[in-house]
C-alpha cells in the first residue's frame, strides 16, 4: 500500500494505492486520524481508484476516519471506488453510510 497526501481547495486528499490489509491498515488508520485531528480541514477525501484490494481492517480504518471527521465537524468523502473497495462496502452495507462520488472533480464540486 502507498499513501500520499495533498491539499486542494481547503481539502485534504489521500491517494491510496495497492493492497490494504491487516499488515498495513494500522498505517492507514494512523495517517487518516492524525490528519483529521491536526489539520482540521473542512473536508477529507480518500481516493480509492488505485486500491487493488481492501480487507475488513481497511474498511474499519475508513469507518474510524468517518467517525473522527464527524467529531470535529468535517466531511469525510470517498471517491473513485475500485471494484474491490465497492464490493467490500456493499458486503458490509457501509456503501450508504459514506459520502461517495465517482471521481475527484465531482467530490470537490459538492
Amino acid at each position, binding site marked *: 500500500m502507498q499513501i500520499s497526501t495533498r491539499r486542494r481547495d481547503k481539502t485534504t486528499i489521500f491517494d491510496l494505492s495497492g493492497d490494504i*490489509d491487516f*499488515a498495513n491498515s494500522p498505517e492507514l488508520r494512523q495517517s487518516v486520524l492524525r490528519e483529521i485531528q491536526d489539520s482540521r480541514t473542512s473536508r477529507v477525501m480518500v481516493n480509492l481508484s488505485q486500491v487493488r484490494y481492501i*480487507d*475488513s481492517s481497511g474498511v474499519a*480504518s475508513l469507518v474510524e476516519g*468517518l467517525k473522527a471527521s464527524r467529531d470535529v465537524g468535517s466531511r469525510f468523502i470517498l471517491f473513485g471506488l475500485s471494484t474491490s473497495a465497492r464490493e*467490500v462496502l456493499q458486503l458490509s452495507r457501509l456503501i450508504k453510510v459514506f459520502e461517495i462520488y465517482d471521481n475527484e472533480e465531482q467530490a470537490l464540486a459538492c
Partner: protein
Amino acid sequence: MLALYSNPKWLSVVRGTVERLTETLGFPIAQCRSITRAVDEALTNIVRHSYGNRLDQPIAMYFRRAQRRHDGQVQQGLEILLCDRGPAVDTSKLQGRPLDEIRPGGLGLHFIRQTMDTVEFTRRGPTNRLRLVKYLAQANSAL
C-alpha cells in the same frame, strides 16, 4: 498444502495463490475475488485472535477438490482447510457483529459466511480447524 507463519506480510502471498487457484479451477472472476477475500479474512482472524498478533506461529493450509450432489447434479468445488495451534476457539462468539451497527471491526466473519457454501470450525487435539468450501455452478466447472 501451504505452511506459513502468522506474520501478516504473508497475506498478500496467500491472496495471490488463492486467486490464481480459483481462476484455474474455473470460478467466475467475482467469485475468485470473494473466495480470496474469505481466505484472507480467515487468516487475519487466526493471526489476530488465535495467535494474538504473534508473528512466528504456525499456520497450515490444505487445498483439495470437493464434490457434492445438489439438485440432482454433481457439483465440483474447492475445499480449503486452515489449521492453527492457538487456544480453542469459542464458537459461540463467532457471530460477527450486526451489520446495521456503524463501527469498525467484526466484518471479516460476515465476508467469509457471505461467500462460502460451508464454514465449519472444529477442534482436533491441539489444532483449530476452519473448513471452507465453495462449489462451482455446473456451467463453470473446470475441475
